[in-house]
Each structure stands twice: as structure tokens, then as C-alpha cells.
């Protein structure tokens, strides 16, 4: 393979010698110059005629972008999507967003400065640059100062460049060769790589599948979950009778749950609704309805469920005429006993909630069967 000279490198003893050489050779204008130094040499940029680094502008732009991103993110998360009121301050108070805004600004700016400099402006990493394989690289990273002459245009006369460098006082001169182009990749290698990659993907996939199958949802450490506690329907050594669940103390009852006297619908139909038809009662009924009933009966109690039809039994259409005339007591009774697929709400709702549900059902029915005078 034919070696083509890429540049001629001369070594100098001191920064001063380097700077004067740059000045002399730049004046001739035949070459483009590049200096290699172990540490930044003041004046080298100016001598080589390099432009100012655009890094500061890049950092400014990215830093501002960081500030904007951080602010908008926080504002959207905590003021719009999931508003949190802290200390009675307005939900869009910006002051609390400042610390994170500052940190994210610095993060964006710093990584632009560091990685932008290395990767974008200096185009590193570069392991194939001719200097890295030259004899002078060790001296240049230690204490010598190098000046490389590269052809500005046209063919490169390495001999003339060498002579010029010696003339301006280079101690040693070396010809840097063009790096060999990377060898073309053989199809066999490509095939092997592809097969290897496919195999690795397959192994990772199968491995994940079987691990998850054999160890389903394994918590990393469960010790904190395993502490003495009462579990419903499970035995417990805590009580004398060895049961986790205890019946109420005889002669007492829970608040809001008076004993229910009726066994039959006929009995229930004679019960009167003890609650007045007041806004507060209706509000309570509405909350209970939306929480416990709407999934099956629909938000308008018309039997069109919010859940899918997959639910087997058809929930009653409480807007049908049969239910318009149903007594409050019988509604109450249904809630106490449940009916076919509908569960009993004796334990999950209080007496008041059940009676206010009856009021609210009336309100829903009235709304769906509004008469002319209701509109006046």
C-alpha cells in the first residue's frame, strides 16, 4: 500500500520558537498550518489566525433551552396536569420552580460546554489521526511544540515543506503519512455479526421470558411486608379465639348502622324515608351513586352501564315506569339485601347514604321525565 504524505511536522523547543516559526511560515502562504502543543500556548490561536470559539454562544442557547424546558415541565406537571396546592399558594406560583430550573439550566449548559467542545467542535474521538501514530506524539504531549504543514492546495511537495521547517529552526522533522483507509468489511464478518446479534437477541428474549415465568413479580426484599398484622379471614394468635376477624361486642352497634327490622319487601314498602329532600342530602346521594352504582346502572340510572356489556346480568333500567313508582323503602330494601347479580350494600354504605340514594334516584328520574312545568 502506497504511503501518501499528509503533512510534515517540525518539532520546536519552546512556545516562543513555535510562535515565531508560525509567523514566518504563514507569511509564505503555501501551506495551511496546524500546531500541536502539550498545553495551550497563549498567542497560538492568534498567530494561526483561528477564529473565536463559538462555544459560548452554543452554551447560551442550550442553557436558555434548559431553563425553558425545566420551567415548562414543572409548570405543566404541577400547575396543569396534577395541580398541587402547597401552603395555600396559587397553583401556578413560579417561585418554587426556581431551584430545579437553575439546576437543569446548569446541566444543559455544562454538558453543551463539555461534550459540545469534545464531540462537536473538536470531532473527537478520533483514533486514526496521523499524529497518533507518529514518532513525535510522545514528545508533543510532554514538552515539545509541533508545527505541521499541510498542503493548502494542489500537490504536496514534502521536501520543500521539510526544508522550510528546518529553515525556521525546527529541531526535528517528520513526515506524517495519510492514515490507511479502513479495510473493507468482508461479507463473512458481516454475516457472523448478524448471526451473533440475532442469537444474542433470542437468548435475551427467552431468558427474560423464562425468568419472569419462573419468578413472577418477585419483590427484591419482602421482609418489610412480613410483619405481625391482622389479615381478614386468616387465623391470628392475637385474639383468644384465634380468629383474625372479630364479631362486634354484644349489645353494641356501629355508628350509622341501625338494626334493620324488615325481612320482606312488603314490610320495607311501609318504611318512610327519614331524610328531608335537601340539597345536602342530594349531594351525598349523588356521591354515593357515582361511587357505587353508576358502574352498573349508568350515570343516568338508565341501565346503560359504564362497564362493558361483558357483565352478565342486565342491570335494571331504573328509569322504567316500574321504578318510578317504587317506594323509597323498597329501594332501601334492595340495597340491604341485594338482588340476583346486584350485591348487598348493607356493609359498604351507611343508613344515611342508602336513604339519600333513594332521594337522588328520584332526582335522576325526575330529570329524565321532566314535565313542561319543570321548565317554567
Amino acid at each position, binding site marked *: 500500500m502506497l504511503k501518501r504524505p499528509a503533512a510534515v511536522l517540525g518539532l520546536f523547543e519552546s512556545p516562543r520558537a513555535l510562535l515565531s516559526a508560525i509567523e514566518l511560515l504563514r507569511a509564505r502562504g503555501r501551506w495551511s498550518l496546524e500546531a500541536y502543543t502539550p*498545553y495551550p*500556548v497563549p498567542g497560538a490561536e492568534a498567530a494561526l489566525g483561528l477564529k473565536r470559539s463559538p462555544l459560548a454562544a452554543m452554551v447560551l442557547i442550550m442553557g436558555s433551552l434548559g431553563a425553558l424546558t425545566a420551567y415548562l415541565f414543572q409548570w405543566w406537571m404541577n400547575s396543569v396536569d396534577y395541580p398541587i396546592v402547597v401552603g395555600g399558594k396559587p397553583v401556578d406560583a413560579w417561585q418554587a420552580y426556581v*431551584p430545579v430550573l437553575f439546576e437543569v439550566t446548569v446541566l444543559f449548559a455544562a454538558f453543551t460546554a463539555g461534550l459540545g*467542545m469534545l464531540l462537536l467542535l473538536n470531532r473527537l*474521538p478520533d483514533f486514526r489521526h496521523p499524529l497518533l501514530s507518529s514518532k513525535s506524539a510522545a514528545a508533543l504531549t510532554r514538552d515539545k511544540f509541533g508545527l505541521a504543514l499541510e498542503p493548502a492546495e494542489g500537490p504536496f511537495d514534502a521536501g520543500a515543506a521539510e526544508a522550510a521547517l528546518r529553515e525556521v529552526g525546527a529541531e526535528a522533522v517528520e513526515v506524517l503519512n495519510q492514515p490507511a483507509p479502513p479495510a473493507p468489511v468482508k461479507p463473512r464478518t458481516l454475516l457472523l455479526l448478524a448471526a451473533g446479534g440475532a442469537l444474542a437477541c433470542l437468548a435475551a428474549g427467552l431468558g427474560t421470558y423464562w425468568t419472569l415465568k419462573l419468578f413472577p413479580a418477585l419483590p427484591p426484599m419482602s421482609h418489610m411486608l412480613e410483619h405481625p398484622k391482622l389479615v381478614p379471614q386468616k387465623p391470628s394468635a392475637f385474639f383468644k379465639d384465634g380468629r383474625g376477624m372479630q364479631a362486634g361486642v354484644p349489645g353494641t352497634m356501629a355508628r350509622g348502622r341501625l338494626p334493620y327490622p324488615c325481612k320482606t319487601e312488603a314490610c320495607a314498602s311501609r318504611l318512610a324515608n327519614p331524610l328531608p329532600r335537601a340539597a345536602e342530602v342530594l349531594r351525598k346521594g349523588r356521591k354515593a351513586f357515582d361511587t357505587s352504582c353508576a358502574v352498573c346502572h349508568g350515570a343516568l340510572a338508565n341501565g346503560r352501564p359504564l362497564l362493558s356489556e361483558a357483565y352478565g346480568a342486565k342491570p335494571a333500567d331504573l328509569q322504567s315506569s316500574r321504578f318510578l313508582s317504587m317506594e323509597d323503602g323498597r329501594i332501601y330494601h334492595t340495597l340491604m339485601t341485594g338482588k340476583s347479580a346486584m350485591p348487598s350494600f348493607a356493609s359498604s354504605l351507611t343508613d344515611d347514604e342508602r336513604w339519600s340514594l333513594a332521594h337522588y334516584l328520584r332526582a335522576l328520574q325526575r330529570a329524565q321525565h321532566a314535565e313542561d312545568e319543570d321548565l317554567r
Partner: protein
Amino acid sequence: MAPEATLSPASLDERVLSAAERKPPAAWWLALAAAASCMSLGFALMAYTLYMGIGAWGNNRPVVWAFDIINFVFWIGIGHAGTLISAILLLFRARWRNAISRTAEAMTLFAVVCAGLFPLIHLGRPWINFWLFPYPNQRGLWPNFRSPLIWDVFAVSTYFSVSLLFWYLGLVPDIASMRERARPGLRKLVLTVLSLGWRGEASHWRHYEKAYLLLAGLATGLVLSVHSVVSFDFAVSLVPGWHMTIFPPYFVAGAIFSGFAMVVLVLSVVRRTMRLEDIITPHHLEMMNKVILATSCLMAYSYLVEGFTAWYSMNPYLHHIFKQYLWGTYGWTGWTAIFCNCLIPQLFWSSRLRRSAPVMLFVAVAVLIGMWFERFVIIVISLHQDFLPSSWHLYEPTLVDYGILLGSFGLFFTLVLLFARLLPVIATTEMKAHLPREDAHA
């Protein structure tokens, strides 16, 4: 400076970079074995904590924060010296920083690593720590950005990543020098990759110097913000003794104070054992000791202002807690903090003592002890008697607490020892640029 006159760039490289090429001495192995044992003990006890739950520690109600957060604040404070030296002193053009900046920066990173462990393990269930980060989830929840604890997550993780970047940027040209010294082989390959093929091109230096300057400016703001944010964890709450406006500057001063003590401690050992006495000179140590003296006075002033604010507030809760600081069950910790932080560093008014190695070591260790106890005072004493006397509770650390504290020191010194043998402890590139040259007056 006289001693540097005998140094040339070549001899600097030879002395600093060759450390990684030689076999480490027996003393290094011994030190590493000791540090790594402590570290392993610490990690084992952390694993035990994760298994048993936080109940393995002495924390209770109302002392819900104890060694975990004391150690966190202690280590993050230590981690402030490095960036201060590399960023703020760079902007002030304080040339004495060159010899010590690399080691101080490395210590910053290692201290932040130690610090970061504590909030993580004190979560109790660290495997769900991602809940701290904003990511879209099906629960429709976002972190509360009005909480100082979230600010802390952002401040500490930004500080770590920016310090790492800063440190690495400084290392790149030095690693390039090490690469050129290495014989072909695996070591050379690793160094080549780490140095990104840096070749010292003038057009690269132009961007590099700009980047370094910009990073220094950014890190300056960062270093001041991080400990301020840490102090918000306390100051934004309503606990008497925490809810104080002086906390941010007071914490930053304390951080610099303890950080410099640790740098002096480590450097006076490193220069002796690695024979770098003429590069890290008594002058450098003296400058750091002056900073310690200045920040010690700042600490004394902060304590006085804090006490005055408490007294002047006419707030009975504040009065009570401040009495506890000095005359309560844990009063001795308060006196330890005052003695070690405000009185002992006053030795440094004498220039003879400032330059004496044993005195320096003594003061540095005293400051580290004092600053640890200061955080004990702030955290444990303020918490153990809250507004509701029926819930007052004394705090007693368990062996696990002590073991994890020891483990964090083990981790720190393991990392320092590895760094001292694997990477240049002196920023050689930066030193070379400032060595006096023969032709300087030609």
C-alpha cells in the same frame, strides 16, 4: 515559587504520571485492604438494612432523620472543596490551585458518591427510587416540585454529573500524555479510548480553554446552589431550629470548611507518601489552612447569628430547642461542634502552626469531627423534642448505624487510594503551562 524552578515539564510527567506504571508499595496495599474492609462492612450492613427495613437503625419518631441524613449532609459538604478549588479559584486566577486541583476534584466526586448512598438507602425500599423522577405513569402522578426534597434530587444529581464532566475534561490531556508513555498493549488501548485520541491541536485547545472557563463559571453557581438546596431541606420546614433564613449561606460556609479540612488531610498524606513535597508545597497547604481559618470564623459568626435570631425571636419553641443544643441531653455534641469548629482552627493565626504538618493533621481531623457533630446537633437535637411533648423521644444509634458510617469512610478512602495509583494526582498539563521557562526572560 522557588521549588517549582527545578521542575521541568518532562520531570513533572516522569514523577506524576509514572506512579501508575510502577508497582504499588506494600503500604498502599495495606491501606487499601483496611479501607476496602471497612467499605465491605458498610455495604454488608446496608444490605442488612434493606432486608430488615429501616428498623435496623436507631431512627424513631420523632427522630426520623438521624445518621442517614447527618452522613449525607456531612459528605456532600466535603464534596464542596474540589469544585470550589477548581472553579472559583480558577476564576479568581489563584495560581496555587494548580497543584491541588486534580486531587481535590477527585475527592469531590468520591464524597458525592458517599453522600448519594445515604438518601438512597434511607428510602427503605430503594428499588422504587424512580418514583422521585418525573416520568409519565398510569397513576397520573407527578413529583411535587414544590418540595425541597425533589430540589435536592435534582441538585445532587446535577452536581455529580457536572463535577464528573469537569474532572474528566481536565484529565483528557493528562491521559493523552499517559497514553504516549504506555507500551503497546491493553493499558495503552484503554488510555487511548479514555483520552479520545486527544492530540493537543492548537485549534482544539482553543475550544478546550473556552469550555473549561465556561464550566468553571457554571460550576461556581452550582457549588453555591447545591448546599443551599440541601439547607432548604431543613429551612423550608417548620421545625424550630431548622426554619432559619441564615441556613443557605451558613451551610455553604460549613461545606467549604469541612471540604478543605478533608483536602488538607488527604493531600498531606499523598504528598508525603508519593514524594511530591516539592510540587504540593507547604505554601499550598498554608493557603488552604488560611481558607479553613476564614471559614472557621464564618462558622463562629453563623452560630452567633443563629443564637441571636433564636433569642430575639421571642419564640418559646426556639428558645427551648436552642437550650437543648447546649444544655440538653445531647448538649455535649453542641459543645464539641463549637470547640472543634470555632476554637481549634484559631491555631492557624500563627504562620508557624499553619505550616506544621502535625498541627495541620490535628486541626483537619478536629474540623471533620466538629462538622459531623454540627449536623448531629442540627438534625437530631432539633427533632427529638418537637412541638408535642408527649411524642418526645431520645435517639440512640445502633451498631448498624456506626457500621454504615465507617463503611462510608471506607468507600471514600478506597476510591481515593485507587485514584492515587491509577490517574495523575496532579493536573500536569495545567502545571506545565505555568512552570517558569528558561526562555521566559530571553
